[in-house]
């Protein structure tokens, strides 16, 4: 059946992206430790703070935050409240899950659109960071990139949620 192959392909791509993102955020965090620690050493033992070290590590934190959010969304780790889902009967709770999924997609679209416009705006204005002259567009770029990844994942989840919802509703009737 071609449908089965399709699902597997999505899972393979998902697994591949998760591996790459894991590597990137782990690497960025290690780099942040090294940068900030070297800055402490530089300030107290060599008496010269490295302004660029704080700047670049802050930008890395932004990247880690957004990239990590994608992983956390794949693993359903984002902080939320599932009290209504557990209280409601299965049919309505499935409907609520689909509704929540759609709302999440709306939020991601807002982030995608906003992220895209702020990125292109800052690239065009040539606005750069004070210490290293990194274009702010590079920093903001992570928002549309991760929003796109989140959106893909949200649609994967939506498909699952809808098919389960249909099954549950049919099963009860």
């Amino acid at each position, binding site marked *: 059946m071609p449908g089965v192959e399709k699902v597997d392909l999505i899972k393979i791509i998902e697994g591949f992206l998760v591996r790459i993102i894991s590597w990137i955020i782990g690497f960025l965090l290690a780099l942040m430790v090294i940068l900030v620690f070297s800055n402490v050493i530089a300030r*107290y033992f060599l008496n010269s703070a490295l302004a660029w070290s704080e700047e670049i590590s802050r930008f890395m*934190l932004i990247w880690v935050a957004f990239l990590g959010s994608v992983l956390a969304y794949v693993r359903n780790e984002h902080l939320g409240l599932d009290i209504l889902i557990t209280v409601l009967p299965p049919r309505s709770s499935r409907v609520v899950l689909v509704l929540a999924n759609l709302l999440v997609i709306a939020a991601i679209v807002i982030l995608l659109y906003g992220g895209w416009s702020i990125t292109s705006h800052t690239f065009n204005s040539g606005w750069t960071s004070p210490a290293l002259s990194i274009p702010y567009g590079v920093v903001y770029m992570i928002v549309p990139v991760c929003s796109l990844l989140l959106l893909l994942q949200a649609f994967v989840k939506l498909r699952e949620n809808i098919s389960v919802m249909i099954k549950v509703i049919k099963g009860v009737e």
Partner: protein
Amino acid sequence: MLTLFLAALFGFILLNVPIAFSLVLTAIVLMFFSGNVSPALLVQNVVRGIDNFPLMAIPFFLLAGEIMNSGGISRRIVQFARAILGHIRGGLGYVTVLASMLFAGVSGSAVADTSAMGSLLYPVMKSEGYKEDKSAALFSAAGTIGPVIPPSIPMIIFGVIANVSIVQLFLGGIIPGVLIGFGLMIGWYIHSRKAGYKAEGRFSLKKVIKSGFEAFWALLLPLIILGGIISGIYTPTEAAVIAVVYAFFVSLFIYRELDLKKIPALLVSTARMTSVVLLVCGAAMSAAYLITTAQIPQLMSDALLGLAGQNPYLLMFFINILLLLVGCVMDLTPALLILGPMLLPIAVNFGLDPVYFGVVMIVNLCIGLITPPVGNILYVGCGISHLTVAQLSKAILPNILIMIITLILITYVPGLVMFIPNLVK
């Protein structure tokens, strides 16, 4: 505007939309009604909310905690506490509380504290015949001391979002954290007498010295962190990175227990935990910007003024009740991020000190970590002990009561919070 804001936010959250996304949607709704919809501005504010050097202390403290757990540092802290208190009737209970307090001095999160102490001590308590539910209730409640005794991730978040000195907040948490610890010990004393636990073994100074010597490098860490922050030698973020490097070296070269192959996994899980917190942080700050422009604190303040008159004690009574209720259903971090910027201006209007208010708010929301139906630490406790949420919720009630008494104490005797910060000012 206030009703709209609360209805939108809690509506989305109730519908099981993750809190970070709920905040984004609420921000857009607010923008829509104020007539200036700009997703670009919203994203810019989210990024600005994350782009904060003090917030970098969060991944660092989390990472330091993870390294300490897999590198044998936590185990040595437990052994030391056991040598001091293990021989008393029900000794392991006191050991749990003392070790949690010591570990709180190096970790900033309740989850880290609870899972470290619970997984090390619960199996021993169980095999020595202690009541399972009471033991689990004890290590879970003791774990909430983690973010009260400095360092503390919630205090870093509150300091950033409310623009209050993180160092002062850290100092303000010391006495309340110790009080909770003593309170839990008193509760355990009463339980031990009732349950008729027997004293085991004898106190041996030799053992204390030996385990103290072994735990020396572990026990030095709180001093390095706090000493450096209080004396102003380094900032909390720098202290956090020093903790990471220190924990890494001690467990790799002195205790020789750290498996280097585990490091990448530790880095990735820490980064993931961090991003969950930071995304809510950024979204909350972008919503906070709109909350302030919509004058929501002002509106709430007027409403509370009607309830509390000009009386700050009455105000704190209402705020504490509100936070305890919110804490029952919401996690510490989002509750702090959503309500902190709304409530702090009100408290300041009533003439209360922001440091005092922040510490009271965090202690209050820490109680929420162990109150059913939603309590992060309650779930961690169930995970470690394999008890059901219902069993643990019942056993933990006396501990919740003890913590509420402590909360009332620090609320109405502000000196308990402010004594140490005022010394250092």
